[in-house]
């Protein structure tokens, strides 16, 4: 199965798919405001009718390359290409100002490549045994696990966990519209034929994620580079990165841990890895002034994070990040059930995808060097042209799923909802997760009640479920406790 997967991954169709996905991922990563999530959401309508391996590989290759693409914008413009490239600005931009932009890009490229491969190797080693463990999880525990996944992302995103929970509820309610999967009863259609089948997941993703993100990026305006060329040698930076093996390894570990945990993700991983590296450095004063480790750490973390996020996604069907939630949506779109039996029923496909991520890690080195000047020129394209053109693809993408004009109307309203959520600091990722996990949680919830003759005690019947409930309670309560303790410490009260 492992070797069959490798053979599929190195087939000509696969290699072409990976190259295209990597190229698109770098482009998407470079433009601030358009990250992997937006790129993947926009690709969903296009891969609707493609073979599953091609569609899924395209998404993964884009996702793998996005982190490296974001580093180019961070290094040259001091504007993060995505949330995973924030810390890259700290040392990457000073290097660029010192005339070593190409060198910095080479460092980022090497760190991204090695960390991406390390993260994928962890995925390959951890996922099969994890899926065997997942077989023992019953319906009740699965429902609680789904709830925990949403709560962790909702509770850990943003400063106010309650907003994350509200966001997750919005996603859940959207998933309830249409036919109930168990009884076939039509819910919340309000007499309209359009809502009978529910709202297409891709439409929600494009609206809530892509359109809102693009409009926000246009509102903020893009910093336009004046020159559109890089100085310093990319290959020199690439090979010099290997002088810092411990920095790459440490940061990859940080990325893997935070990638596999729901609520972690690249946004925390890159900053934490930077901080870890700064603290262990013999001369921390170099950081923030162009220290190579300061650039290597966040790049390694954000690229090892992504394959690790696939561990809970593929084995439990619980995505750890919003991009993995979109990938899960694609799996569901193809009728591939993640979780319990994926490695048994679609083992070759899964192994081919994992090998494909490793190949993609090499591919973005090749493409990154070959097209370096082209990618850099993208940074001089004004956003007032780039964003509207991308908005056009949102509308066309929404329409092309079912050739239904009402999907365009739906995507507009979800875009408006997503925009207000972002503006009022309601995190969007939990809503995405709610839409994707809603059917899974409901099926398992109802199945558990059926087995237990309607007794809610089924959700508290195992040690595993008790552990999940305790973690869930901690995720909700701890931030408020922390705020209360800080508030009392600040006011000087004593007990």
């Amino acid at each position: 199965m492992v070797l069959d997967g490798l053979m599929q991954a190195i087939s000509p169709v696969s290699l072409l798919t990976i190259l295209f996905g990597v190229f698109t991922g770098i482009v998407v990563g470079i433009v601030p405001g358009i990250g992997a999530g937006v790129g993947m959401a926009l690709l969903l309508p296009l891969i609707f009718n493609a073979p599953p391996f091609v569609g899924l590989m395209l998404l993964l290759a884009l996702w793998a390359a996005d982190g490296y693409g974001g580093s180019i914008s961070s290094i040259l413009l001091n504007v993060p290409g995505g949330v995973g490239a924030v810390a890259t600005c700290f040392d990457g931009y000073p290097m660029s100002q010192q005339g070593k932009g190409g060198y910095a890009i080479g460092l980022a490229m090497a760190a991204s490549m090695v960390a991406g491969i390390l993260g994928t190797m962890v995925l390959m080693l951890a996922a099969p045994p994890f899926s065997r463990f997942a077989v023992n999880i019953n319906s009740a525990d699965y429902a609680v696990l789904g709830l925990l996944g949403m709560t962790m992302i909702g509770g850990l995103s943003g400063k106010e966990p309650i907003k994350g929970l509200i966001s997750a509820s919005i996603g859940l309610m959207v998933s309830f519209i249409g036919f109930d999967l168990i009884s076939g009863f039509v819910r919340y259609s309000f007499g309209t034929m359009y809502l009978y089948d529910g709202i297409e997941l891709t439409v929600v993703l494009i609206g809530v994620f892509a359109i809102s993100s693009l409009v926000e990026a246009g509102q903020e305006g893009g910093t336009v580079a004046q020159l559109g060329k890089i100085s310093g040698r990319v290959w020199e930076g690439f090979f010099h990165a290997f002088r810092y093996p411990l920095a790459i390894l440490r940061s990859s570990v940080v990325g893997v841990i935070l990638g596999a945990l729901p609520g972690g993700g690249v946004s925390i991983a890159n900053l934490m890895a930077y901080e870890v590296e700064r603290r262990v450095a013999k001369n921390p004063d170099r950081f923030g002034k162009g220290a190579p480790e300061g650039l290597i750490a966040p790049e390694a973390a954000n690229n090892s994070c992504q394959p690790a996020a696939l561990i809970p996604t593929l084995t439990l069907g619980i995505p750890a990040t919003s991009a993995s939630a979109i990938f899960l949506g694609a799996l569901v779109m193809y009728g591939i059930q993640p979780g319990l039996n994926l490695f048994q029923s679609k083992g070759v496909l899964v192994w081919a995808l994992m090998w494909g991520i490793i190949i993609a890690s090499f591919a973005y080195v090749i493409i990154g060097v070959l097209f370096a000047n082209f990618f850099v020129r993208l940074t001089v394209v004004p956003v007032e042209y780039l964003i509207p053109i991308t908005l056009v693809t949102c509308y066309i993408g929404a329409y092309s799923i079912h050739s239904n004009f009402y999907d365009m109307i739906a995507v507009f309203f979800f875009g408006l909802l997503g925009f207000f959520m972002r503006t009022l600091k309601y995190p969007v990722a939990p809503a995405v997760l709610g839409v994707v996990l809603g059917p899974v949680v409901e099926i398992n919830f109802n199945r558990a009640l059926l087995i237990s003759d309607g007794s809610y005690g089924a959700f508290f019947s195992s040690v595993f479920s008790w552990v999940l409930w305790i973690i869930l309670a901690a995720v909700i309560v701890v931030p408020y406790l922390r705020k209360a303790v800080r508030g009392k410490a600040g006011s000087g009260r004593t007990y």
Partner: protein
Amino acid sequence: MLKKSEQLEVGFVLFLMAIFGVFLAAGLDYPPETRRLPLLISALTIVLLGIQLFSLLAKARRSQASPAGEAVPVDWRKSLLCFGVLGIALAVAFLFGIIVSSVTIVFGCGLVFGARNRVKLSLISLATGLVVYVVFVRVFNVVLYRGILF
């Protein structure tokens, strides 16, 4: 008196409460197995929204006095205008089709986001429409919506 930004957030919370209230009310007529989880989620969310509303009002009362006439941040106007353009583009798509709507989106949103050279913007808009036609209609054979007038 609440600041404009606080008014917007309170309005959003009230809007969500209304929506979830509708979901709760509509779900009451459904069969028991079908309404179980939706009613639970709706009810819990209304409680959460109530807590959020209370917290917002309490924060507003505690915060330092500032002129109640605070304007909506200027940046939001660009975004709201952009959504206005997208809404108009929907109407244009309904009447004239997606290709004409594409031109509308690029031109309208480009103006909103600050494109100064209108000739260049017009050319890019028309080029986008042409590319959409060539790529989707000719190359991918996707049947794009033509509008009720065509």
